[in-house]
């Protein structure tokens, strides 16, 4: 049995070695995506195009505008003269945020009553809008607090300033909310899924298309041997891929790795079983490479969305949440983020490991069962 499996593994690796294009298909898109995620994918927002309509023309209003400009988050691209200017700028996407300070702002601030300032945000990109708004409220809150303290100092000289509550948030594991720390480890799971599902599903479908599968079927090889012979080479390729991505992530992008590499290795091995199982299952269903391509797309995208990579599973409807529980990527992401950023080990990650092992066994077993040595 092992002799025959070894035979298949050797053959598969020989084919892979001959196939220059395959090497490029594997390595180049992986690195390109990794660098795109590392450099371009960020939740942080800088230099938001901002238009200002200051109808108060006071020291106070200028001070508030200066704080926006000084934060680095907003770039004042225009100073408007009328509300119409503001509407036009937002409509034409010249500005994403508008700060409107109404007349009487300074008087109200000095009196200590609620002062009218309005912020308009282009909500068409709700993600950017939300993030920009959170900066707005932070800047305004700081300003208000200082004004208040200032006011109380001036009006009640010598008296203690009024007590204020300051909320000090402390994000653990990623103190600066660095997007890169969040994306790069997650990319390991995504890229492994895309690359290995494609590779394995095509590996069998290609043989079916060319006709060599029929030739294999008349040999005494058993389905389990065939599936293992197809699995082992791509398992090795998958491991190499993860090592490359993790290496670039830690060395180039300086993503901290705080856990035990062996725990990540175990999780990766179990995840690869699942991914290989998905690829093989697709290949037992599809007759042509086009079908396999379409099916892969159909599987990979939902797997990504329903994994908790960037959209919180807890916010999903029950049915989607249920799907995410049979999605191997859901568990692997926990393992990856746990080992990279949290530095936790098996004592925490064992449920994810068990889930991955279970899913992997079910997926691989069903592909063995589905792979019949007959053309019926």
């Amino acid at each position: 049995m092992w002799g025959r499996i070894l035979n298949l593994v050797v053959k598969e690796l020989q084919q892979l070695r001959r196939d220059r294009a395959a090497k490029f298909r594997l390595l180049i898109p992986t690195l390109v995506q990794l660098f795109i995620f590392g450099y371009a994918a960020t939740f942080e927002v800088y230099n938001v195009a901002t238009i200002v309509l200051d109808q108060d023309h006071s020291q106070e209003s200028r001070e508030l505008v200066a704080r926006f400009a000084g934060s680095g988050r907003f770039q004042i691209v225009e100073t408007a003269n009328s509300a119409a200017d503001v509407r036009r700028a937002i409509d034409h996407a010249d500005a994403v945020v508008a700060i409107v300070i109404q007349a009487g702002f300074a008087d109200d601030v000095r009196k200590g009553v609620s002062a009218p300032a309005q912020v308009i945000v282009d909500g068409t990109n709700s993600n950017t809008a939300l993030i920009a708004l959170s900066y707005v409220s932070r800047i305004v809150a700081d300003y208000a607090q200082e004004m208040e303290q200032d006011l109380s100092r001036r009006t009640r000289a010598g008296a203690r300033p009024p007590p204020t509550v300051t909320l000090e948030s402390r994000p653990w594991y990623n103190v600066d909310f660095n997007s890169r720390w969040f994306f790069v480890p997650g990319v390991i799971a995504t890229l492994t899924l895309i690359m290995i599902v494609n590779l394995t599903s095509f590996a069998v479908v290609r043989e079916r298309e060319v006709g060599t599968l029929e030739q294999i079927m008349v040999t005494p090889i058993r389905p389990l041997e065939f599936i293992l012979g197809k699995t082992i080479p791509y398992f090795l390729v998958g491991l190499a891929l993860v090592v490359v991505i993790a290496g670039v992530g830690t060395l180039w992008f300086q993503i901290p790795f705080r856990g035990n590499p062996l725990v990540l290795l175990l999780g990766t091995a179990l995840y690869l079983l699942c991914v290989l199982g998905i690829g093989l299952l697709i290949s037992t269903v599809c007759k042509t490479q086009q079908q396999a391509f379409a099916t892969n797309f159909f599987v990979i995208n939902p797997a990504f969305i329903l994994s908790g990579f960037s959209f919180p599973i807890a916010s999903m409807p029950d049915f989607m949440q249920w799907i995410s529980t049979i999605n191997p990527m859901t568990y692997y992401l926990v393992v990856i983020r746990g080992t990279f950023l949290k530095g936790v080990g098996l004592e925490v990650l064992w449920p994810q490991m068990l889930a991955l092992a279970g899913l992997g066994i079910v997926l691989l077993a069903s592909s063995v069962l589905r792979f019949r040595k007959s053309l019926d």
Partner: protein
Amino acid sequence: MTGDIRIRADKLTKRFGDFVAVNAVSFEAGRGEIMGFLGPNGAGKSTTIRILCGLLRPSSGRAEVAGLDVAREPEKVRANIGYMSQKFSLYDDLSVMENLSFFGGVYGVKGARLKRRIAFAVEMAGLAGREDAVVSDLSGGWKQRLALGCAVLHEPKILFLDEPTSGVDPASRRRFWDLIYALAGDGVTVVITTHYMDEAEYCNRIALINGGRLVALGSPSELKRSAIRGEILLVEGDDPGAMLEALEGAPGVRDVAPFGSSLHIVVDDAARDRAAIEARLAERSLSWSRIEPIKATLEDVFVQLVGEGGKAAP
């Protein structure tokens, strides 16, 4: 003699939905026999072979290959058979040697025996010195002989060849048949499908298949004798179309079929009926350049039993 029976098909039937691809086909093939499956495309030749290889399960009927029930013990059957499918079935991106070691390995041929068998296959295919060539660089004839070499690495008792010579030049086809004769001489039972009439003549026995049914079974000469009851006159002339019309249903004429620019006319007695045919043509003022009795070919048999529809298929 029964000990020498290698293949026994008994009322083998395969249905795909409502379509009956193979309909109650029964035959036997013995040791060292070359059995040809002849028939138009879609007649059920390949389906029959695939059942015998265990690639398809028969809907009903039974097949024994090497004394084993194909449906019940397909794995044991596979150790005894070699198969070359219609599609070219080597790994195009592997070298000659890599293909041979791979197929040897999956058939469980090891060590010194594997070395010996690979050397045999390389020699047989005429690929000595080109062991490291990648298969995609080889031309059709070489590939075909290498595929045959891969199929016999494990010294199978029975060899199934599904249209192995399609798309190969005549010289390579001839060379391929030499190899088949050599294998049969060593006792291998060869089942081969073809639609080349000349190749069918090389077979010990022919199973003529049409519409899923076994229409005739016998040696080429037996088939000619039994299928053509009568003699054949070859008629050549300027207007074969008009001659065909004139002679169809004429007295003494049993059947007329066009063969290229000439006609083959089946009659009871060539010497006697020749005069009547000449008279009929003269009556219609059709001129002929040649009328003479010829020996029946397999094509005559084929036309007689399968009909023009079958002949039209490539």
